Every structure is written in structure tokens, then in C-alpha cells.
């Protein structure tokens, strides 16, 4: 049999795409998907599944794509993954499932993520009466007597997954979201060109179709306390409130105008659609030369949004080298292709402003790499007397987010770690208080969408166990 090469993802040309917010990756055609699916050798003991936090039957759905039975493929996917169109776009497959693919040993792994996206998008293109949804509805009515009320705080990937899995078992689940939109970081954090908000809304509609209630504009801890939720008859609560607290460097000048946290910058652009200002009311003020501090996925997103908002020059400022950059390789490549420049081994020590308090420049130190630190990456060490300045008129701080302390602070007796993270049993999401479970970034600190989904899934099982034990 002739060897089929890994199918390339069609993309929007870099010169064109920096002028719009439309999707960069365009998705496989049917022919490409079938060809790619045929590359999977259907291992007897598939290692890929072990790399997937939500345990998708990867060879199973790929086999169905190879057979052109797309309806069956998406059914297999949705059996484990409630958000396949999202995961197919933003999961770091190269470090999760694809790294474990047998083909990766001698060449390129099967493009599992792209195939997942294909199957999910195929279903979205069909009529809105999804087959998967109607079968779940039947399941729900079957378990009607089980309808115990469960509350979920936060509608990001962890909360959505936990809620969907509990609803599939038959629980009466209500998600409380403080923002006006459902989806958490999927809506406010990840830009439209990587994850169209329409796609997010369709997957959330699927979760609603499972019977999950979603209440926006409710900030658990303020509008309703956890105790009040228990008093209202909720038997267990899952906390998935994410890593919402932006970190700053704590250096002089950080509160100058046009210095944004990545959270603010991306929330304005993504959730509030500032790129459509003044049609949309929320503005974003951006200059011509933007420095993004940090080199993770959030930094890449902020840099690429800056280009699309009209910046002439966008610099990633990072204290280590390209090798240590925590962003996905694909995102770094995309950013570079679009013209984002890397300013490596550089650490800001001070921001400089004009008489109107607008940022005009930054003073930095040159760094070199020393011994590896606790993260295993080589520690950046400042080079003496290497201070230098350069001009910037906009800065985005993308150096990480901490767990949002707002809700944990309101729960008496809840154990939290030194970074404000809720301490949980990793396998179950159980916290120090019976009936309160937690997962995702609020427990781990900033991580990935799929890790949060995995935590939501594990917690749903633990909550089911917990409720069953309550009844005995």
C-alpha cells in the first residue's frame, strides 16, 4: 500500500489574515479527512487514548471517518468529549494524544486534532436536529427519578464538561456564570481567529440540549453564596471558576496608560468585540508599537490580536530563549509568520511614560540562561550593567494568571494553597469540604482547556459517587 502523507491544514494566507479576525486554520476537506483517517493503523492497544484527559476513543472515531461514516464518528467523540469542535481547534494535541501515536516514532503522527475538528464541524454543518442530542434526551428522561440538583460555578471548559457529564447521567444541573456570556475563557480569552465564538455557542447549545440550565450574571460568592446554594437544595457544588487573576511584574510604571493585562486586552477584543468598535461600544486603545511581555499561548494570542487591531510592530518580550517558550509550537509559528518579532533574553525592569501618563518606552535588562530551576527550564540570570531602553506605546502583560480568589475566600474552612488555588484530590476534585468539588485552573493554576475538561469529567464521576453514597 502506498504511504499517505500527513494531510496539511489549509490556512488563510498570513498577509491577508492579519487584516481580519476570521479563522486562520480552515479545516480539512472531506477528501483530506478520509485520507488522513486512513493513516491510522488501528493499534490493538492504542496509546493515544491514554494521552487524552477526557478518554476519547480515538481509533474508534478515526475508523468511522475512514469509512466516511461521519455521523458515527461524531457520536463516538461526543460519548466522551462534550466540546469536540473546541478541542479540535485549541487542544495541544502534539503533547497529548499525537505524541503517543505509534506513527510518531518513525514519522508524523495521525492528525488527531484536525480529524476531531473535521467530525465536529461536519455535524455542525448538518441540520440543527443533531442525532447525538436526541439520543441523550432519551437517556435523561430514563433517569428522571435521579434528578438531584447539582450546582456548577463557572461556565468555562471545566464547568461545562462537569455539567454535561452529570446531565448525561441524569442530574438536574445548573451552571452559574458571572459574565453575561457562557463559556469563560473560551469566550473572553481565546481570539475569534483561533476559536470562532459561533462554534463555542453551538457546542454550548449542545450542552443545554442535554438539559443543563445556565444562569448568567450570577457571581457565586457575591450574588449567591455557596451556603445559599446548599440551602436552595443543591446537593453538591462544582467550582470551576478558573485562573482569572492577572499577574503583574510589580515594577515601576506598570499602571501607566496603555499597559494592559492580557486578560483585559483579550476580554475587550474577544468578549466585548472591541475590534468592531464603534459598532460595539467597548473600545481598545492601541498604538503602533506593541510589546507583549511573556511567551505562552496567551502572549501569542495578545500579539496576534495586536496585529489585527492595526499595530505596525509587535514584539514578544521574553526572558528566556525561543526553546523555553511555553506556547504551542503551532502558535509560535503562526505568530512569526504573521510578523510578530521575538525579543528574547530580555526582562523589563521599568516602564517609562510621558506627561500624560501614557507609556512611551521600557527599560530592560539582558539575560543569560543559568542552571535549570524548579520548572526544569534554565533559569534566566540578569547580565550586569546591561540596561537598555526601547520605545513602545502599548504593553500587554501576559506573564500568567493566578486562580481567582473571589469565590474561595467566601467559603469558610475551604483549604487553599499558597497561590490561592483550591486544594483538591486530583482524581476526584474533592475539596476539604464535603459536597464541594473543584477542578480546572482554580485548582491547578493556569493550564490547558483539555486539562480543565479532564478535571471536570473526573469530578462528575466523583459527584455521582458522592450523591449515591448520600442516599444509602
Amino acid at each position, binding site marked *: 500500500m502506498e504511504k499517505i502523507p500527513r494531510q496539511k491544514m489549509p490556512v488563510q494566507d498570513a498577509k491577508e489574515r492579519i487584516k481580519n479576525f476570521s479563522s486562520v486554520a480552515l479545516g480539512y476537506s472531506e477528501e483530506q479527512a478520509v485520507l488522513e483517517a486512513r493513516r491510522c493503523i488501528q493499534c490493538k492497544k492504542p496509546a493515544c487514548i491514554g494521552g487524552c484527559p477526557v478518554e476519547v476513543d480515538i481509533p474508534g472515531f478515526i475508523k468511522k471517518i475512514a469509512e466516511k461514516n461521519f455521523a458515527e464518528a461524531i457520536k463516538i467523540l461526543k460519548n466522551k468529549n462534550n466540546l469536540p469542535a473546541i478541542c479540535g481547534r485549541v487542544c495541544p494535541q502534539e503533547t497529548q494524544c499525537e505524541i503517543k501515536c505509534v506513527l510518531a516514532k518513525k514519522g508524523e503522527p495521525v492528525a488527531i486534532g484536525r480529524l476531531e475538528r473535521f467530525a465536529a464541524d461536519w455535524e455542525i454543518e448538518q441540520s440543527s436536529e443533531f442525532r447525538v442530542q436526541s439520543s441523550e434526551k432519551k437517556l435523561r428522561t430514563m433517569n428522571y427519578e435521579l434528578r438531584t440538583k447539582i450546582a456548577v460555578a463557572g461556565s468555562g471548559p471545566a464547568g461545562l464538561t462537569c455539567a454535561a457529564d452529570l446531565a448525561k447521567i441524569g442530574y438536574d444541573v445548573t451552571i452559574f456564570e458571572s459574565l453575561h456570556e457562557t463559556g469563560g475563557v473560551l469566550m473572553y480569552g481565546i481570539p475569534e481567529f483561533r476559536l470562532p465564538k459561533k462554534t463555542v455557542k453551538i457546542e454550548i447549545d449542545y450542552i443545554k440540549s442535554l438539559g443543563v440550565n445556565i444562569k448568567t450574571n450570577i457571581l457565586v460568592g457575591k450574588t449567591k453564596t455557596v451556603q445559599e446554594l446548599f440551602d436552595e437544595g443543591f446537593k453538591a457544588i462544582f467550582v470551576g471558576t478558573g485562573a482569572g487573576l492577572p499577574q503583574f511584574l510589580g515594577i515601576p510604571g506598570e499602571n501607566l*496608560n496603555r499597559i494592559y493585562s492580557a486578560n483585559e486586552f483579550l476580554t475587550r477584543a474577544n468578549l466585548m468585540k472591541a475590534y468592531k468598535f464603534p459598532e460595539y*461600544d467597548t473600545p481598545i486603545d492601541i498604538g503602533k508599537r506593541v510589546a507583549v511581555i511573556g511567551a505562552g499561548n496567551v502572549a501569542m494570542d495578545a500579539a496576534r490580536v495586536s496585529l489585527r487591531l492595526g499595530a505596525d510592530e509587535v514584539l514578544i518580550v521574553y526572558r528566556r530563549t525561543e526553546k523555553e517558550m511555553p506556547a504551542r509550537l503551532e502558535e509560535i509559528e503562526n505568530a512569526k509568520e504573521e510578523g510578530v518579532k521575538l525579543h528574547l533574553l530580555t526582562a523589563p525592569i521599568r516602564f517609562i511614560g510621558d506627561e500624560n*501618563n501614557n507609556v512611551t518606552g521600557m527599560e530592560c535588562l539582558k539575560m543569560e540562561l543559568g542552571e535549570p530551576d524548579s520548572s526544569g527550564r534554565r533559569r534566566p540570570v540578569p547580565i550586569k550593567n546591561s540596561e537598555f531602553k526601547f520605545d513602545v506605546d502599548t504593553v500587554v502583560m501576559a506573564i500568567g494568571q493566578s486562580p481567582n480568589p*473571589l469565590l474561595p475566600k467566601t467559603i469558610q474552612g475551604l483549604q487553599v494553597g499558597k497561590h490561592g488555588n483550591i486544594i483538591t484530590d486530583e482524581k476526584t476534585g474533592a475539596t476539604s469540604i464535603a459536597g464541594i468539588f473543584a477542578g480546572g485552573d482554580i485548582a491547578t493554576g493556569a493550564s490547558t482547556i483539555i486539562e480543565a475538561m479532564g478535571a471536570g469529567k473526573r469530578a462528575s464521576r466523583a459527584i455521582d459517587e458522592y450523591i449515591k453514597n448520600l442516599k444509602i
Partner: protein
Amino acid sequence: MFKIIEKSSHATGINRFVIEVPEIAKKVLPGQFTILRLHEKGERIPITVADSDKVKGTITLFVQEVGKTTIEMGKLKTGDTILDVVGPLGVLSHIENFGTVLCIAGGVGVAVMYPIAKALKEKGNKIISILGARSKNFIILENEIKKNSDEFFLTTDDGSYGQKGFVSNVLNDLLAIRHSPLANIVYAIGPVPMMRVISEITKQHNLKTIVSLNPIMVDGTGMCGACRVSVGGVTKFACVDGPDFDGHLVNWTELTSRLSVFKREEKESLDHYCKYLKTVRNS
């Protein structure tokens, strides 16, 4: 969707809204605020709750027309709806029996002061109020504040009502003629320049002063950091650490400049809206 039970115009460019939000009405305490969004394309704006009715499930907001969103909101009528209202947000004001409290409020800040003054009065404090407004037509809640005050002063910039001048003039007069200390604590709420001047005066007299800050916000839950203010050299988020802070420690210059960061865009947004209104009127 949240229904406007009652809308009325109370002073020039200041509208009063009674909105049905039972969850917030049940929980809100003096000093706390809400964030609202009028419609699908709207921005999120923070507005402090002036009053609430637990039984009816309503909250009362006073909104001054200063930009696109507040002007647009001013066009809403009784029976109309607001798409999103979330709250109560922020830390409640510190209410206890201090002894004598000086409540100084200006402009629409009087609406923020009202529940605080009321709560302080209920705690048994002696309340000395100084209200200020640009002109007679800009005064709100005069009687409500008066009812909760043991002493009451009113100023207008143009002298059209009450004493001519600023609230700071009354404060200086009182400080000059009365025994020290004039009060055990001062609450000052109003436009930033007013709060700044009051804080500068009270600092010289060692009078502890609490101010309520309203910087630019987006989410209001501590997520974006747009509302960061420097207080005593430390960065605080007004939405979750405030809105009340020690006026003597606030970096007023920074706050003032951060409030003007979107000046150009605010004008553009308003112009865009005015153009839209014109086309609606003409068609």
C-alpha cells in the same frame, strides 16, 4: 433581561432607574455596585446601588449622562429592559458607630453616599452632611440626605441654591470655627477632583477619610485589572478590593490619568451614536 420598573429624570442629565433584580436587592449593602450592559453590542459599566427594596426585589440607580452608554440609557423608559445586570460587586462600606461622621458628596456621588449615610445614621452616628452640585438643577436626594443628617450644608458652584462655592469651602469653614476634631471619620464621594481636594484638606488635619472610587472596569470580578489604583504605593483592584479606599493614600494623579485613557474613543463612540440618532430621526 431586567425590567425597568420606574424611570424618572431627577436633575439635569441625571436619571433614576428602579430595576427589578431580586437577587441583588436581597444582598446589596451600602457601597456596593452593579455592572450593567444595555444590549448585545453594549459595554459593561459600573454603577453604585443607591437604594434597594428587598420585598419588591428592586434596586435604584442614579445614572449621569456623561457618554454614549449613559446617554443611551437615559433614553430608556419605564417598562423597558436592560440586558445584563450583575452584582452586588465590591466590598461593602465600613459601617460602625464612629461617633461623628462627616459625609461630603458631590454631583451624582450623592447617590452613592445616600445608603452609606443612612446606614451610619442607623448605627447611631452623628451625621454632618455637605452636599455640592454645579447648579440648582443638578441636585439629587437633598431631602433623603437631610433626613439622615444632624447638620446639613449645601453648596452650588454658581450660587443658584444654598451656599455659593464648593463643598471644600464649607469643610474649611467648619475646620476653622469648630473644635478639633470636627469628626471621627470623613466619607467623601463625588468627582475625582473633589475627592482629591477634600482628602488633601483632611490629611492636614489628620482626619481619616474614606473615598469611593469609580475607575474604568470591564468584568468587575477582579479578572482584568483595568480598575487598578495605587493606594499607599500598592496596586489594588477597585472592583474587588474597593471601591472604598483611604483617601490619604490614593495616588490621585494616576487615577485621573487612567480615567482619561479612552477619551478619544469615548468621543468617537458618542459621535457615532449621535450620527445614528440623526439617521433614525430623518427616516
